[in-house]
């Protein structure tokens, strides 16, 4: 089989066309043969009937063929001319047009083909049997003529169909070439390429589907690139601060106080880098599905109190009031991860709140669910940013992003990690907010 789809389709098409055409031609030739033979039978039958009715018994047991001379003229003259033979009812030969024809009594009425001759035998009312025959040469000639014409015409038709199909297939399959060339040209640096879709046929739909797939790939790729850029940005910034500070500290002799200041700068930078790296590692393990979650009974209310107590010093420093409220809410889960989740939400709320704002961490239960809410009276999140708050490194308000937060909160990964923790517990996390209205994060976990 040739490797080209065009050639293969063409081969199949031509083969089918040839078979259909040959069948049709064979039927045509056969029907020409049939009608030729039928015509001949009819003519020969008529002659036989005429001859039969012309046989007259003379009363002495002898017979006479009482026919005009002209009627006999056609018989036996040329090779292809009709011939006849007549027998009496008892089988004795009465007359024949040609002495060389077989004189054997043929029996009852029939039509037969013998030695490329057609013979019609008719038994007249008188019992006389008449055989009229003629060579089939004429019928053969017309069948041969028809065969030749059909063969030549067919060959021309096959050739025309072949070239027509070649051209049509070329046109129809051209989009495949375009699709292949586009897909071939697509690369990392060239993801914006799309197939030119001009038709609504199957190939047009394939091209459109591929274009949509390319869109998704490009989107995923860009998301990945953005994520890598964000991650490197989050690491480079504290690293730059640390290196610049160390360069300054080492440039010339410094006082102990200056050294201490430099060490503090370096410490803060290192802590930020640690937060980013830990967050990235957690999410990388989460993406790989390589984090084993413990399952034990955990009271969200107790965890919330624990987290709020631990965050209080930091919140007091910023003038933000923290408190917990609500009833015990027992879930089965990983206490360390759930503590991380609550810590992220609480420190996020505290971080984005101003002096005098309040952060409330409350727990409640609903049928089959335990609910944890962290709400603040901070500045809120704009509608444009709200759908993105759980994205990695997304920051609604960059102005406050540098404020000191807990865990990975300050690195822009805290909410992404919180979402993963909630979902890996079979639960979900929601964020409701509007500018100036404060923000409410709701975590629902199966009880």
């Amino acid at each position: 089989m040739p490797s080209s789809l065009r050639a293969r389709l063409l081969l199949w098409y031509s083969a089918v066309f040839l078979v259909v055409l040959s069948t049709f031609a064979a039927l045509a030739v056969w029907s020409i043969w049939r009608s030729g033979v039928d015509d001949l039978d009819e003519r020969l039958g008529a002659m036989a009937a005429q001859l039969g009715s012309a046989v007259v018994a003379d009363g002495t047991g002898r017979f006479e063929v009482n026919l005009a001379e002209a009627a006999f003229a056609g018989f036996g003259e040329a090779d292809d001319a009709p011939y006849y033979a007549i027998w009496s009812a008892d089988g004795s030969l009465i007359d024949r047009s040609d002495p060389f024809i077989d004189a054997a009594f043929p029996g009852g009425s029939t039509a037969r083909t013998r030695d490329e001759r057609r013979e019609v035998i008719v038994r007249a009312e008188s019992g006389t049997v008449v055989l009229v025959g003629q060579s089939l040469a004429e019928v053969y000639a017309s069948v041969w003529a028809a065969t030749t014409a059909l063969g030549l015409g067919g060959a021309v038709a096959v050739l025309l169909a072949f070239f027509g199909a070649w051209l049509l297939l070329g046109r129809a399959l051209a989009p495949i070439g375009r699709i292949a060339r586009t897909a071939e040209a697509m690369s990392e640096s060239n993801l914006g390429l799309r197939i030119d879709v001009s038709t609504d046929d199957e190939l047009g739909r394939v091209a459109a589907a591929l274009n949509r797939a390319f869109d998704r790939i490009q989107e995923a790729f860009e998301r990945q690139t953005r994520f890598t850029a964000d991650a490197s940005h989050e690491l480079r910034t504290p690293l730059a601060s640390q290196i610049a500070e160390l360069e300054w500290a080492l440039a010339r002799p410094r006082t102990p106080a200056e050294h201490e200041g430099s060490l503090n700068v370096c410490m803060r930078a290192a802590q930020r880098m640690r937060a980013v790296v830990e967050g990235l590692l957690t999410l990388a393990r989460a993406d790989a599905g390589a984090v084993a979650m413990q399952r034990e009974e955990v009271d969200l209310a107790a965890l919330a109190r624990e987290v709020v107590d631990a965050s209080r010093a930091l919140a007091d420093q910023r003038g933000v009031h923290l408190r917990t409220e609500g009833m015990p809410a027992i879930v089965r889960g990983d206490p360390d991860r759930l503590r991380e989740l609550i810590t992220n939400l609480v420190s996020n709320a505290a971080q984005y709140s101003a002096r005098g704002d309040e952060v409330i961490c409350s727990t409640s239960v609903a049928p089959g669910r335990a609910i944890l809410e962290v709400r603040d009276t901070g500045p809120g999140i704009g509608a444009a940013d709200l759908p993105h708050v759980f994205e990695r490194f997304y920051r609604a308000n960059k102005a406050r992003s540098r404020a000191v937060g807990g865990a990975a909160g300050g690195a822009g990964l805290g909410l992404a990690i919180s979402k993963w923790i909630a979902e890996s517990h079979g639960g979900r996390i929601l964020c409701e907010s509007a500018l100036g209205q404060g923000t409410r994060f709701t975590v629902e976990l199966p009880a």
Partner: protein
Amino acid sequence: MRILVVEDEPDLAATLHKALTEEGFAVDVAGDGEDALWQAGSVNYDAIVLDLMLPLVDGLTVLARLRAAGSRVPVLVLTARDSSAEKVGALNTGADDYLTKPFTFAELLARIRALIRRAAGSPAPLLRLGEVTIETSSHRVTRAGVDVELAPKEYALLEYLALHRGKLVTRTTLHEHIYDERDATMSNVVDVYVAAVRRKLGRDLIRTCRGEGYIIDA
């Protein structure tokens, strides 16, 4: 030389402030885009070091607005974004140079000095004023081949006048370019420094235009 450092990471901004000040620059710091635009609009800086990811107004917008307002101040973009698209975007918006974090301070310093030299129209790092030479990279000043010690402000004043030689520089301009906003000084300090420089490098180097300012003749 007066520089504006626009950087929202407070530690890095503080480090740059003290390190650049130590190198003889008068340094102001802006922590967000709005502050940066306000300061750049009120002081005639010799160079701006600009971070791109800024609160309130991002760095590219700051740059675009500065250029739209006709500012010719040399701008060095200092950012953690290192993709070539970001660099091209910043340069095409009107940045003069681009440095990615983390950077070495020596490189930042060299680039800032190069930007200032080019903006003043004298790209050679060694300035010759008769028998006086000034090495802008090391602040080394010689007179007839002999090293001369100048105080940081004296050097700053000399370098500014030397870079703008042939042009009259007013007292106010000199004051603006050798002091940052934290310095509260009296108006006659410029005259005091000019006198000190004359004492060390000769009376004829800096000429006084009475009532207007000072000039180093080309």
